[in-house]
């Protein structure tokens, strides 16, 4: 049989199957559970590697299952999907390791890791979707599988947060569904293709298309935390740190942003979208979200909340890059999908370490923490500088391409937004770093769990260091072919220059 037809399905299954098995496992089967998790993650990584190599050589990997008489469930590996799949797979591995350390001895781990795996399954599905209904299917699955993680702690606060999360995401899902059915009844297909499948609809459908675009973007904007649909994100901070990492860097927010990229490029096609005049408003919205998120972040003392608002602003970069119609800005936006993930997950890991080791939750408690936990704070520093956009860290690459792209597309106002947001980033990150490195530590931490001579447990320390190194690496070696940047260039090339 032909393996190419099965690899995308296997990629999805490689986290689904372990997840289902883990549900059935008894709480105390720690070893087996850990083995299953890591095995799944590694297998997935291997399969993705194969696909990356293949797709680079213009090879197509596609799985088709009949869903409805006229609609198929399609999983296809294209450059854009692979960028996202690779990101989420790699970060899943790291996050799993982190979660194992983080939840050491915590209750209900079977449930946690089960839904954790389902969540990644959904994300990979979202990434590999070959048409809009498949995307919708996995997008909703993502909602369902993240809910138990958000309310995992079972406190009243967690329940409330979960409630808010659902109100936002379910409504978003409904809008997405409506847009999808409507589009289907107009176009008769939902297949993602470069430069979109709605071009050949006559001008009489323009108003309908604009409505559909708004519906789809609104539906996706909820998860992408686009202003004013961002309300759930800061609240969801009650969830355990690995979950926050998942929500912010790997799965949920990314799925939303990725969806918007998909809709603009492969449903409408950048040309049609621009012709409909829907890209400009989107760009403005993104720009506003960037500034808004940064400003709100300034005033948060709770570290995780500050990071949450920073996410809101950073993810909007991706959308901005897409909405400025132009190849170079596209590169900037798409590559930020990866860069933001690496940097933000680093920051959340570090926040989690502070909470776990010293039970520090507030910025105001972080005085001199750099001396107690140098490795953690070193990683944090790299992430923070990356966010600010200091070379040679990943964030700089994104912002550079966004800026150049904006100029090329004649949207010079974007430069102001970039500069402004970078200043704001500096304003809410530098004080943290200053406190951590240059203030005197208090004579007594809120609490101090000892881990031998290490500053904290290995499983907690390695992930942030690793991701920080990645964030540095992708910046330094951006010019290599398989770097995220190189890959993003490939995508932009296929989107813009192919006949």
């Amino acid at each position, binding site marked *: 049989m032909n393996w190419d037809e099965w690899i995308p399905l296997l990629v999805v299954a490689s986290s689904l199957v372990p997840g289902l098995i883990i549900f059935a496992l008894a709480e105390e089967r720690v070893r087996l559970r850990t083995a299953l998790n890591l095995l799944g993650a590694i297998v997935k990584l291997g399969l993705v590697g194969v696909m990356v190599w293949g797709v680079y050589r213009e090879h197509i990997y596609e799985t088709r299952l009949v*869903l409805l*008489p006229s609609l198929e469930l399609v999983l296809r590996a294209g450059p854009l999907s692979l960028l996202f799949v690779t990101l989420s797979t790699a970060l899943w591995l790291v996050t799993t390791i982190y979660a194992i350390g983080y939840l050491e001895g915590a*209750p209900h781990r079977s449930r946690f890791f089960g839904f954790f795996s389902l969540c990644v399954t959904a994300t990979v599905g979202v990434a590999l979707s070959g048409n809009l209904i498949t995307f919708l299917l996995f997008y909703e699955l993502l909602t*369902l599988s993240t809910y138990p993680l958000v309310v995992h702690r*079972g406190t009243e606060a*967690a*329940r409330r947060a*979960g409630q808010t999360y659902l109100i936002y995401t379910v409504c978003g899902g409904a809008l997405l*569904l*409506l847009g999808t059915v409507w589009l289907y009844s107009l176009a008769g297909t939902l297949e993602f293709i470069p430069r979109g499948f709605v071009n050949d609809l006559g001008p009489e459908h323009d108003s309908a298309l604009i409505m559909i675009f708004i519906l789809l973007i609104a539906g996706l904007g909820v998860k992408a935390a686009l202003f004013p649909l961002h309300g759930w994100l800061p609240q969801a901070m009650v969830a355990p740190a690995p979950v926050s990492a998942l929500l912010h860097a790997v799965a949920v927010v990314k799925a939303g942003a990725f969806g918007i990229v998909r809709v603009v490029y492969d449903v409408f096609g950048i040309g049609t979208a621009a012709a409909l005049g829907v890209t400009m408003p989107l760009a403005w919205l993104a720009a506003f979200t960037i500034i808004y998120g940064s400003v709100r972040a300034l005033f948060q003392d709770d570290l995780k909340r500050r990071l949450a608002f920073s996410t809101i602003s950073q993810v909007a970069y991706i959308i901005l890059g897409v909405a400025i119609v132009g190849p170079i800005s596209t590169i900037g936006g798409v590559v930020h999908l990866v860069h933001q993930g690496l940097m933000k997950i680093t920051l959340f890991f570090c926040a989690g370490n502070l909470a776990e080791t010293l039970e520090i939750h507030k910025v105001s408690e972080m005085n001199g923490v750099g001396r107690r936990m140098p490795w953690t704070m070193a990683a944090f520093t790299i992430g923070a500088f990356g966010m600010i956009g200091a070379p040679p860290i990943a964030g700089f690459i994104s912002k550079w391409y966004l800026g150049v792209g904006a100029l090329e597309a004649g949207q010079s106002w974007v430069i102001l937004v970039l500069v402004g947001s970078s200043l704001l980033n500096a304003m809410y990150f530098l004080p943290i770093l200053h406190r951590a490195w240059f203030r005197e530590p208090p004579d007594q931490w809120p609490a101090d769990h000892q881990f031998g001579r290490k500053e904290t447990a290995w499983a907690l320390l390695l992930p942030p260091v690793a991701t920080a190194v990645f964030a540095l690496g992708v910046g330094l070696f951006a010019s290599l072919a398989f770097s995220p940047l190189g890959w993003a260039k490939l995508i932009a090339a296929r989107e813009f220059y192919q006949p």
Partner: protein
Amino acid sequence: MPEAFSQTPWALVLILLPLATGMISFLWPRLAISLGLVTAAILILAVVGLGWQIHSLDGGVYHHAVGGWGAPLGIDLYADGLSLLMLTTTALVGMGVSIYSVAYFEHEQALRFWPIWLLLLAALNALFLSADIFNLYVTLELLGLAAVTLTALAGSKAALDGAMRYLLATLLGSLCYLLGVELLYHSYGTVDIATLAERVAATPVVWAALGLMGAGLILKTALFPLHFWLPPAHSSAPAPVSAVLSALVIKATFYILLRLWLTLFNPLNESVATLLGLLGAAAVLWGSLQALRQTRLKLLIAYSTVAQIGYLFLAFPLAAVAALSTWNAVAYLALSHALAKAAMFLSAGNLLRFGGHDRIADLDRVVQRLPVTAMAFALAGVSIMGLPPSGGFIGKWLLLEAALEQNRWDLVLVMLLGGLLAAGYVFKVLGHSFTEAPVMHEAGTVPKAMEWAALLLAVAAVVLGFLTVPVLAWFGLGDVAGIGGVGS
């Protein structure tokens, strides 16, 4: 073996077997449970057999002239895709409920439950196979009395009260239906559906008959605003009975309504379809809102049934243009709702057995203390909400498609709102099943069979979402829509 298989008159097995086993289990109570399970299993086999025969027959319709007289003098049995849909639903839900009931009912109650339950199955199958509107009346009464008795089986004040409302409502419904039947008989001299279909015309008598039969059946189907009897009855009955009532019994009267609509009344007038659609929309919104208000789990589920019934009626105004996708949607909604709702009521029963109450606010961490049941409820909820991947989603998608094709934005809006409200009440329950209750209860033990029966049905409702093509082919409702129901 295939020879014997294809020769067996499976349709008659569907009727006679549960009748016989029902009476035998009344005669020798000791045999009741084993007889019940065997019957449930054979019924599934029989449905498969019947489906196989229907597909091999030309025209995809099964006929059997009881007594060899043939309509109009005698009574005809008749089965097509639509009947097959309902029979399959009955067989599947029946199996799940039977397994559950083995563990649920104890000594004295079990003796009383099994004969009536088997006779109820017989009544359902007889109803779905009948092609004679008077015979349908008899099966309706058979069904009604069985259902009422099972409702009262709990013996509590609430249950007796609910059963009484139910009995009055169902008797009134039957009488209206019977008066309609006699009007049709006296104007066309037959009670055979196919023969009527050839003769019927828009005369005052037919209008009166339509009104009476329609009203009676709507009352029995508990379509808003005639749903007042449903919540008390469905919420107070024993869990497996609630499951059967919500999943199958109200569907039976909907089936008759649909059958008569497709064959007799559809040509008469469009405005009736509009009215039914309107009531359906109202039911969706009102039922969902009420469900959202409830603090008791079983009441919440009962009101959710009121809402879900509404979706089925949204089909009537849509079918005129987009017949195929609409009837497929109805098939999917009916089947997946039956499975999901049964699963919901069964898991509600488990929670009741576990905590000794069904107050949503203090479900008290059942997610970890009763994980299988919680999972069953969640999966059933996914289908009820119409979220992918699930049978409910497919049904909703098809219905939305039909509505958008003809720009029925009002209906589209209703469907989406219904979905959102459904999510509201499902996650209201799920959210509370994660949190701790202010007051602790010591937990009762829930037999494994009860937990797994619920999960089985819920999983079936979800898996349905991946089997669209074979399932739709199996029912072949395309033909039903095409030839207006009766293969003539």
